[in-house]
């Protein structure tokens, strides 16, 4: 039985983009704020919005959406969903503050208050990391679902979230052509980070496949569901080939050959985003079908 619809897939995907965009924005700003200003700004402009759409769908997917407020009058540390509801609420507030901080005009009147800015950035870093991590922990802590119940799932989803955030930044920068005149430094930075993330994602994927295949009967039969039929086609062609292998080769090619090409970047960023969605949709759907072997 499928209890969580594709709304949940979209929610995990959009939360990943938001958290990832914020992580990329904050870290590139920390490394060199002036050199990578267009990444910093675009990440801050993107961060608040995808997760808002995702949260709306999350509420719609409840059987009693009119009672969603109970999530915000309860805090239960044993429930990753309860902790997560608080994390995404706080993230939404801080990501809007961070968004306003990066607007050309200083609406918050904070430009002279260095401590307040540092606090927003620190809170943003902790919260965006928490959002990207909790979406995987939400699944991996259920002992009843062998496809989810593995410590590599949160790692896989975390790396994929940062990659999706970077791809979203790269796509919007290409579409709007913001700061295109002196883009070479930031482009090179994005290509390097892109390559590293795809490299890590491919490693995590190998660990996932080998780990599940050589583990318990429950894990092996869960992997069997992912490897066969519609899920198999989506996983191998949609995620592994189109979402990881092709963007990884493209990223390596760009770095080694020092080639620049906006169309090239546009296509690889789109593929990475599509791969991120397909990964989540396979994990969410197949994961609900997979049962723990009890006897």
């Amino acid at each position, binding site marked *: 039985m499928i*209890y969580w619809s594709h709304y949940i897939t979209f929610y995990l995907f959009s939360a990943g983009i938001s958290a990832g965009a914020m992580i990329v924005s904050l870290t590139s700003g920390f490394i060199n704020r002036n050199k990578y200003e267009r990444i910093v700004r675009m990440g801050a402009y993107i961060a608040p919005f995808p997760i808002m759409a995702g949260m709306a769908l999350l509420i719609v997917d409840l059987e009693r959406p009119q009672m969603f407020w109970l999530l915000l009058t*309860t805090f239960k540390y044993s429930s990753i969903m309860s902790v997560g509801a608080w994390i995404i609420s706080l993230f939404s507030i801080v990501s809007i503050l961070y968004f306003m901080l990066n607007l050309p005009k200083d609406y918050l009147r904070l430009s002279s208050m260095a401590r307040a800015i540092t606090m927003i950035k620190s809170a943003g870093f902790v919260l965006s990391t928490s959002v990207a991590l909790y979406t995987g922990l939400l699944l991996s802590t259920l002992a009843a679902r062998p496809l989810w119940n593995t410590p590599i799932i949160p790692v896989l989803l975390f790396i994929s979230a940062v990659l999706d955030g970077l791809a979203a930044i790269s796509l919007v920068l290409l579409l709007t052509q913001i700061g295109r005149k002196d883009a070479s430094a930031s482009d090179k930075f994005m290509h390097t980070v892109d390559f590293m993330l795809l490299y890590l994602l491919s490693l995590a994927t190998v660990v996932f496949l080998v780990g599940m295949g050589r583990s318990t009967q429950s894990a092996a039969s869960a992997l069997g569901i992912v490897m066969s039929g519609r899920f198999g086609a989506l996983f191998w062609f949609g995620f592994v080939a189109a979402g990881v292998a092709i963007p990884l080769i493209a990223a390596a090619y760009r770095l080694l050959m020092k080639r620049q090409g906006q169309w090239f970047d546009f296509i690889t960023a789109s593929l990475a985003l599509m791969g991120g969605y397909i990964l989540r949709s396979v994990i969410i759907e197949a994961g609900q079908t997979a049962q723990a072997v009890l006897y």
Partner: protein
Amino acid sequence: MTKSPKWAMIIDTTKCVGCFACVAACHNQNDLELTEHFNRVEEQEFGTFPNFSRRFVPMQCQHCDNPPCVGVCPTGASYKRTDGVVAIDAQRCIGCKYCILSCPYNARTINRAHGYVHKCSFCISLVESGSMPACVSTCPTGVRIFGDINDPGSEVAKLAHSKKTSRIGKDLNTMPSIYYIIE
């Protein structure tokens, strides 16, 4: 001072003939739609050829002492009572279905008409008025034994602490209150 009761059940699969009377009684008692089940009868094979058996295994909420559904519930709607019953406060259930996915026994269902999760309650209203749960009193072959596991003299306590019984899915650390006899 005697301990307050903690309800538990023994299910002797060696006596089950697969008549599904318990399933029908459960539907009747809980006023369920035909598509919903608090209680079902699975067919399972045990052992390897040539030493194997095929059994009907009645399956329902195991009223775990370490219930994953209670841990994951974000609003506290799912809770564990002091008498051992895992219960749901329908007034607090938002229908997120996280508990359904957390249950290794697939014991929980949701009715889209009212939108909250529900499941076996050990027929606690019947039990509190001195009767047995509907599935127990209906079973024609005496598969099910229900009682207070805190009462050392009860049949449930004796069987639960004997080597004859085992609990299903104990690797998952759920610590069920239903003990099975499977040979």
